[in-house]
């Protein structure tokens, strides 16, 4: 399994699999899906809102309820205790801790779609936990 962020999730749902990313099962942590859903459901104005409003209903459904063969939204419950321990160690909120816990629990690489989405808590935690962080082009 590969743990992905919101950018990679949108890309793979759209059929734009990053060429350098191995073809494997994908896991999107719950908080990543939460942030994506908030962007979808909570208009903030600007061009982003107009683009999201322009999507077809089936495309919105593909983001709201991802097909499990494309990616799985990870059940947070088995990760929660590890995530709490990692948050206490490395700081950051549930999103960061859940990503690190999912990487540890699945012995998985972490793939992001933008360096801006990695953040210092994940970068530092991944180094100390021996997890590989990749940013797709």
């Amino acid at each position, binding site marked *: 399994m590969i743990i992905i962020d919101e950018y990679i999730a949108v890309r793979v749902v759209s059929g*734009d699999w990053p060429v350098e990313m191995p073809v494997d099962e994908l896991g999107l942590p719950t908080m990543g899906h939460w942030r*994506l859903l908030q962007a979808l459901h909570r208009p903030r104005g600007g061009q982003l809102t107009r683009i999201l409003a322009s999507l077809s209903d089936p*495309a919105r459904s593909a983001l709201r309820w991802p097909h499990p063969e494309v990616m799985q939204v990870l059940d947070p419950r088995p990760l929660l205790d590890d995530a709490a321990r990692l948050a206490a160690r490395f700081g950051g909120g549930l999103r960061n*801790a859940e990503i690190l816990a999912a990487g540890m629990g699945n012995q998985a690489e972490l793939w992001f*779609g933008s360096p801006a*989405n990695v953040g210092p808590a994940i970068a530092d935690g991944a180094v100390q936990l021996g997890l590989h962080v990749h940013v797709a082009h």
Partner: protein
Amino acid sequence: VGVSIADELAEERRRRRLAGDPRVTPKDRELLLRLVKGDLMDEFQAALDAVSAEDPEVG
């Protein structure tokens, strides 16, 4: 040597995975890729960051 059923199924699954979700039309794809690879990346990142900023528990 023939291809095994296991190989056939694995290849079909791989193709489906790479193709993405069939509910996304080419027009939708064009719009979505503007968010994650194109001119709206900064706005998309700002929207994600805003969710975390509004709720420190999300982080």
